[in-house]
């Protein structure tokens, strides 16, 4: 536990004293701002708005493809250095000769990434505050939408952590993660392409867009949570084994 906390604090500090987190934050907010602005402009020009739709649902739900595209860049970029850099620079040797278990190392680093991811999302709460000035906001929907984003981020960052542990090159880690997560995203798009059947059900089950559509309506589908959780745990479990395996290289 000591080791976990020490690594977590060090990782968060390192992320925010180097440009990476700030660059990602800036790019991310610029993109989200553009998406939000276009959605608001769209709704402002509409004469009538139906009951079950609104800017919040559009942002998190129907138009979630834009939001997920930015995550496909931000998450891999956030996680790429987490192990690759330590192995390239050799600091991993000092880290793993301290009295700390591999699982604490992996979890400490991962928790720091998830914290940073959440911090990057934090300013977008302002959008909801802005909307509240002009209308009614359903806080339950806002809460479930952010929960959906947390789930997707958790899964993406777990896969990114694993990829970063697989290579000493940040660039290779970045490319592998984008490839993997883009593949997962595309598989989800299959929901809208294939005929009804087992394969379409599978696609619907793993669909990130489907997940955001459900969560943005306030539907907390346990199957979605289980899927995100399984990907996260599997990724972290394999990463722990990879870290342990370095002793035998």
């Amino acid at each position, binding site marked *: 536990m*000591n*080791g976990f*906390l*020490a*690594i977590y*604090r*060090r990782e968060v*500090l*390192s992320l925010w*004293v*180097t440009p990476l987190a700030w660059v990602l934050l800036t790019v991310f907010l610029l993109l989200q701002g553009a998406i939000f602005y276009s959605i608001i402009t769209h709704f402002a020009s509409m004469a009538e708005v139906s009951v079950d739709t609104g800017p919040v649902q559009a942002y998190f739900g129907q138009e979630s493809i834009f939001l997920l595209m930015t995550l496909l860049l931000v998450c891999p970029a956030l996680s790429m250095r987490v192990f690759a850099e330590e192995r390239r*620079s*050799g*600091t991993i*040797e*000092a*880290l*793993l*000769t*301290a*009295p*700390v*278990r591999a699982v604490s190392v992996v979890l400490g680093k991962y928790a720091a990434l998830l914290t940073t991811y959440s911090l990057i999302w934090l300013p977008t709460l302002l959008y909801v505050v802005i909307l509240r000035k002009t209308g009614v906001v359903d806080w339950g929907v806002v809460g479930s939408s952010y929960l959906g984003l947390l789930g997707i981020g958790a899964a993406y960052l777990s896969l990114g952590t694993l990829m970063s542990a697989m290579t000493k090159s940040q660039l290779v880690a970045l490319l592998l993660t984008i490839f993997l997560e883009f593949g997962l995203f595309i598989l989800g798009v299959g929901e809208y392409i294939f005929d009804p059947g087992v394969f379409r059900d599978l696609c619907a089950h793993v669909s990130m867009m489907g997940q955001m559509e459900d969560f943005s309506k306030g539907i907390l589908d346990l199957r979605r949570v289980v899927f995100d959780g399984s990907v996260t745990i599997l990724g972290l479990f394999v990463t722990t084994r990879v870290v342990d395996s370095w*002793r*035998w*290289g």
Partner: protein
Amino acid sequence: MIEVSNLTKDYGTVVAVRDLSFSVGKGEIVGFLGPNGAGKSTTLRILAGFLGATSGHVRIAGHDIAAAPLAARRALGYMPESAPLYPELRVSEYLLFRARLKEVPRAKQNAAIGSAMDRAGVAHMAGTVIGHLSKGYRQRVALADALVSDPPLLILDEPTAGLDPNQIREVRALIKDLSGERTVLLSTHILSEVEATCERALVIDRGQLVAEGTIAELRARPNSSAVSVRVRDPNAGAEAAIARISGLTLRRASTDDAALGRRTLQIALTDGLDPEATVEALVRALTEAGIGIHALWPEQASLEQVFSALTAHEKAALGAAEPGGHT
């Protein structure tokens, strides 16, 4: 403090460490000596728990590193080769991270970091970002890191590599200063380093222990000592003069300035003879032959020479005590 028995590390294509056994007692300062690629770093990494052994056992402070890895790692401070650090952190931030990681109690953390920085001589750099430090200071920060949990055992992989002569002296003094309550195992490929800091040395070559003992014991082994002379010798009469003295062999002769007849000669002394008397005889013979001596200096026996002497000796001992009489 350290007990290593039949340690082997096989990388698949190369065997880095082969059937290595040694032990280091409490309070000893032991030098781990060998040329580059001898398996020093691999052995130290195994002791520190960074690498797993293919076979054999290692006990650190009584804890088997395979069965109780955390207890073993708690007992040691390890400084990796080339001192890798996080460049984005300040020295004090890095050491606080290391102190937390090494389970230094919260109440003692500040005192532990302060004393580690004092000992390693980086206290005035506490607020500096590590990335802005010179190589020598980074090395010292890594040393402070090894000291921060006040471990009974220090394993230092080439602690003076990349330092300037003043810094080397300081680090050696620090290591000497640590002796007494602490056990230190340090690796190096510099012979004089072992002489300056260690009481005992382990010599490793191609993954095997080739010699072990105190510095005096190692010195008593046959080695190839030599002297070099720079002479004014226009008629090239030095060879004949040297040949007249028993116990001298001309190893190399070079002409520095043909017009003035300046030459440099390297002469090997035969083992077993009194070197002082032999050198005296050499000087007398050269002077009598009308050769002017400009300079005379002892050739430092390079590690390679000591090694070839050591390995040759071991092979001879093996041959004499066949079969399997090698201990």
